[in-house]
């Protein structure tokens, strides 16, 4: 991809591009920042609408998957192309995953064995979720993403709550919050 490709798609002049960005790389980083903050905003809003941590995780993940499906091109840029777009893009990709760590870490307070959980658990859970989404996005099957929600919720909650309780949260009917997040 070249700057020429970008300005053609954007329908703007080459000059305009360089008034905003000094290079393709800078434009790429701005795209990552834009998409990741938009996605995080949705996650925080959805998770914040609920009280109990397991349901907050479910709502937050749901909002994230919804964003990915609504913005497949942006998501592909941030979750697939970013990995091959040079060190700055990879660093941003890594750092943006860290934003999710704090949401998951709260689970240690509600887990019966929270104090014994591995230090790197949240990093691994988020890495696993991102890898599943990477797979679906490279296979160009974003439409298959929303149906992954129960599986991903169960995967993310099992280390904290055990498989049984995690499964219940993944499939339970919750009036209000979740439905709003999925529809939104």
């Amino acid at each position, binding site marked *: 991809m070249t700057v020429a490709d970008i300005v053609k798609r954007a329908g703007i002049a080459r000059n305009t591009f360089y008034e905003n960005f000094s290079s393709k790389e800078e434009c790429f980083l701005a795209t990552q920042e834009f998409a990741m903050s938009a996605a995080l905003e949705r996650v925080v809003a959805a998770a914040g609408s609920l009280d109990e941590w397991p349901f907050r995780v479910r709502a937050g993940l749901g909002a994230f998957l919804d964003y990915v499906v609504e913005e497949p091109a942006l998501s592909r840029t941030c979750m697939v192309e970013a990995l091959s777009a040079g060190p700055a893009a990879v660093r941003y990709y890594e750092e943006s995953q860290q934003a999710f760590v704090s949401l998951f870490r709260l689970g240690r307070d509600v887990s019966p064995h929270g104090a014994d959980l*591995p230090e*790197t658990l949240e*990093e691994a859970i988020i*890495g696993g979720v*991102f*890898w*599943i989404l990477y*797979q679906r996005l490279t296979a160009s099957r974003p439409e298959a993403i929303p149906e992954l929600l129960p599986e991903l919720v169960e995967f993310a909650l099992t280390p904290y709550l*055990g*498989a049984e309780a995690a499964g219940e949260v993944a499939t339970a009917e919750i009036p209000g919050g979740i439905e709003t997040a999925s529809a939104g």
Partner: protein
Amino acid sequence: MRDSANQSVESPEYPPELARLPPGRHGLPREFVAHNQRERLIAGLAEAVAENGYAGTTIAHITRHAAVSRRTFYEHFSSKDECFVAAYDTVMEELRTRVGEAFDQEDEWPQAIRAGIAAMLGFLAAEPHLARLSMVEALVAGPVVVERYDSAIQSLVPYFQAGREGRSKEILAGLSPTTEEALVGGMVSLISRRIFADRTDELESLLPDLVEFTLTPYLGSAEAAKVARG
């Protein structure tokens, strides 16, 4: 194939320690020399990529590290990309073999998983250049390598799927079709993040965390933690 090894190792610009074949008329069979040159080029690429990154690596860098001539390079590979693919495949083959052997040596599945992960971390920690080549640079080396990278990660899935065998109905109900993919993805992300940050010395200390993380869905966290601690 031309016998260009003699010519290259006699060249004064190559430091003798890089020439892994003795100079002069060594009388080795031609196929052996050719094979050895290929290995040297692959090793040379790994060193050059560690030094300059994939994008910054030139064929001159590779041939200098391999201590062979440019002509020899082109007798084996048509481009830098092709040489990278060969290097990537060589590293992954080695990794696959070590992981497979470690896994097969254990009778019990949880211990086999532990042994397999330990073998992977041990190899990557001992070979930081190859770790970087296979887990970081591979992603910028073009679609052919990225595709191989994706399938290399997916090829770890069956090791974990084997853990479903003989589990109770309750445990199986808690596993989804994507459980293994997510576990493998989580494990690889922990590993590659440390390689990306040049912290390969931390890799082996990840063993207990990774074992507990990957075994928990099958054994529950208490039992998984026990295996993790060894």
